[in-house]
Structures are given as C-alpha cells and as structure tokens.
C-alpha cells in the first residue's frame, strides 16, 4: 500500500476508526432540554447535538450528523465523554480538547482520557475543524440550555 508514513496512523487511530464505523449516542432524545447544530462549510460536515440536564449534570446527550470520519468519530466520543458529567466539567473538557488541537506536541490533559486519540489530528491543520466541530456545537447547546442550576442568562458566553 502506498501509505508508508506513520502520520496517517496518527490521524486515523484505531479508536477513531472504531467510533466512525460504529458511532455511539446517535439516538435522538425524546424531549431534549437543549439542542444545537453546526456546519463546517469547508467539507460539509454536519453535527446536531441534543442535551438533557439534571441539576447541572448532563444526564443524557445525543450526537448525530454526517461528514468525514474525524468529525463523526469526534461527535461519538465527545458524547461518551461528557455524559454524566457536570456542565462545568464538559466546558473544561472542551477547553482541554481545543488546547490539544492547538498544541499537538504538548502533553494532553489527563482529563481527556480516550479523547487523547485525537492528538494527532492537530498535526493535520486542515482536519482540526473536523475534530472540533462537535465540541463547538456542544458549547452552543450548553449555552442555549439552562444547565439546570444556573440563573437565566449566565451561560451565554
């Protein structure tokens, strides 16, 4: 196969390919507390996120869309990572993920866990937007929802 360089392995880690082939958390929520959608005009990736809150905790989350393997795997792994966590934890996870995209050579935050699989994407600048799309949409969803324990308006960044 004419793909001799290690870089492609860095981009398409087995965990990413697994989530691309079998995405998780794609079931729509019955009555979501918040929803948001986003679009990456460069490649046409689409992501839709729905969130249920319970007292400041993301009690359930759904992520659906269509697009490249990186964007769709990122949505699947993001949903798995934030479910059951507080809004604040999800926000700091988002910040850590974006930081890893900007500084792919730095040691990623331990809080990222499996999401560390996306570290190599940072070395493919064109694909960073694919990986971060789901996280941007999540951020919009968190800002539009009430978060469960915040006074009105406080979440609007």
């Amino acid at each position, binding site marked *: *196969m*004419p*793909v*001799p*360089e290690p*870089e*492609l*392995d860095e*981009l*398409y880690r*087995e965990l990413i*390919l*697994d989530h*691309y*082939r079998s995405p998780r958390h794609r079931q729509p929520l019955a009555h979501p507390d918040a929803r948001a959608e986003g679009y990456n005009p*460069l*490649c*046409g990736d*689409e992501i839709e996120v729905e969130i249920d809150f319970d007292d400041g905790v993301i009690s359930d989350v759904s992520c659906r869309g*269509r*697009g*490249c*393997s*990186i964007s769709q795997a990122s949505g699947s792994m993001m949903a798995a990572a934030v479910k059951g966590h507080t809004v604040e934890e999800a926000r700091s996870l988002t910040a850590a993920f974006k930081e890893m995209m900007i500084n792919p050579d730095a040691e990623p935050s331990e809080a990222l866990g499996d999401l560390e699989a996306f570290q190599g994407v940072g070395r*493919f600048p064109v*694909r960073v937007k*694919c990986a971060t799309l789901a996280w941007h949409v999540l951020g919009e969803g968190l800002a539009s929802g009430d978060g469960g324990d915040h006074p009105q308006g406080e979440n609007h960044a």
Partner: protein
Amino acid sequence: MMFDVEAVRKDFPILQRQVHGRPLVYLDNAATTQKPRQVIDAIVRYYEGYNANIHRGLHKLAEEATEAYEGARAKVARFIRAPEGARSIVFTRNATESINLVANAWGRANLRAGDEIVLTVMEHHSNIIPWQLIAHEKGAVIRYIDIDDDGRLRRDQIEALIGPRTKMVAMVHASNVLGINPVAEVAAMAHRHGALMLVDGAQSVPNMPIDVAELGCDFLAFSGHKMAGPTGIGVLWARPELLESMDPFLGGGEMISRVTLEGATWNEVPYKYEAGTPNIAGGIALGAAVDYLENLGMANVRAHEKALTAHALERLGALPEVTVYGPKSADERVGVVAFNYGDIHPHDLGQVLDQAGVAIRAGHHCAQPLMRRLGCVATARASFYLYNTPAEIDTFVKALGEAGRFFAPQPAQMPR
C-alpha cells in the same frame, strides 16, 4: 505535431518533486494547473529586465513593459479567435471578477424589476453570487435550468425557461464537476429572445480549441491560472459594442480619459475597464502560457486529455463502490471526473490519497446547489491536464481501492 507527454513533463519543474516520499501525482488541475518553466521565466524576465508601469512612462522600460503587456492581450485574442482582436479583451484578476464586471457594469444599467436571468444548477458560485447580488438590487428574477440523471442540462427546461422576459443567460461551458454544455445552441436561443449570453469558460478555454464566434456568446470569462498561467490574471472577452455601451465597473487611474472635479470621461475600450495598475507580470506571463499552449496545439491538448479521461472512466467504472457523476463518455467532458466511493467521505479519501502522493480535490467544488441536486454534500474529484499520464491515473485508482479497503466497515490493517 506529435504530442510527447514526457517532453511536456520536463517543462514543469514542480513535477519533479516528491510528496510524502512519493512522486507527485497532481490531479487537481481543475482547481489550478501547474506552470511550465516558460511561464515562470517570463515573470522573472519582466521583474529582472524591464519592470515598469505601463501606458504612462515615456522611458524605455515603460515602453518595453507596455509592449509586452499589450502583446499578451493580442495573444489572448488570437487564442480564442476573437474577431475584433485585442480591443475585445479586458484583463481582470480571474473569471470571477470577469463575471462580476458584467453583472455590475451591464446589469446595473440594463436590468429592471421582473427581468429574468437564466442560470443552471451546475454553476460555480462565481456564476451565481454576482447575479444574485444584482438581481436582489434590481428586483430581477433568477431561473435555474435543471439537469437530468446523467448530469446533462435538460433541454425541455432550456426551452421553457429562456423566454421574452429573459435578459441574460449565464452558463458554464465545461462544468468543474460534470460535463460540457451546448452553449452555442443556448446562445442562439437567448438571442432569439433578445437576451445576452455569458459563457463561463474557466474549465473549457484551458482544455480545448475555442472560437468565440462559434460559441456565439456575448461575453466569455476565464482565468489564467487554470491554463498554465499565473494566479491573479483573468480575462473577459466581450463584443466591443457592449464594452463601448456599458459603464465602467471599477473607477480610478488608467480607465479615464479626462477628469474634472465634477466628473470624467472614460478611456477607450478595453482600458475603460482596467482601473489602476494591473497585474503586469501576470498578463505578460499569461501571454507566455498562451504561447506554450499554442505551440503544443490545443487540438492535441484536447485529444490527450480526452484519452486520459476515457482511461480514468474505464478504470473507475471497474470499481463497484465508485459512483461517477456526469456524462459517461469522455467526449462530453473535459478532464474532470467527480466521484464518490461508497459512504466514505471525500476528505477521508483525499487524505489517504495525499499520503500516496496523489493530489485530488475533495469538497463541494464551489457548487453547493449542484451538490444538493446530486444528493451529496461533497464529492472527490480528479482532474487532468496536458502533463498527466495514464500511469498516474493507474496510481490514483490503485490508491483509491486501498483507501476504500481501509475505511471499509470491517476493521482492516492500517495500509502499508
């Protein structure tokens, strides 16, 4: 003259380079083509030997620069067999600016509320947005000719949509996704209804012999960088009487004859449309590109690319997962083959092919309405030029098959 592709390849320095340790296989020519040494040298010769502003200096360098720039204009006129010669050639930045020029300079003076502009669903954004802007301003209406299942324009719609209200028909000659359109026929129909016809020649002028009189259109727009020339130089050909009657597009130096504090009179055609110092080096280098293409012979270029396209269609047709968009015959295409491979996103294909040294385009090709019409968000696209070889297409198809196996639903070994 025999077309010797190996000799042609030696003229293009970039074809020597490697990408990810593999020889570059450049199949993104519909986006921009590579440049031969002759074109690169023309730029260097200008800047090293006779750089000066044109049309105004009285000194030797200005005289040489003006002669070279105007010489290039005459070459471009000859290249498309413009009956009225250099005065029908306006230099712009690119085909996009050429279309914007017409939409503004012609549209502002001639469009009224309720007038109709006829486009097609396969237009590049550059032949949609300028018309949407002016139509919105004037209250004009845009109608779009649809395509059939083979990606050809629907004849019933051509006849139904072009009518007494039509003032302008603007249509791509060779699509950057699908195939070649019958522009001469459509131009005749537009004229029967008193409408004008603009042809977007960005993908046709670089790839086949063009005779504007045979096209029968009123405006022809194309870009230098897709025909072995540099970026930043484009062309608008127009019938000189239209250039005479329209108002300017951009104002400034060069385009005026006499200026007072109250107003101005315009310079003669085509300078009336060339405000400010133009891309002098670009114009001269486009002239060198025209020389290069004419030396090869555009009929030879067309025959070479048609053979490459037929080869690519045959090889891709043998892969059951591949969907090719547009007409199935190379006769109806320039060297452009847009396709999808199963459910694999074109960006993933493009990424894996890049690792194999193969450069293709992946995305919406600045034709989002067409992507929606085709029922996809994006496609991959391989596009060929005069220096590509059948062996390169084989390399591309082989890498494509391997990429397909890599992304297949069953986990596979990382390709080596």
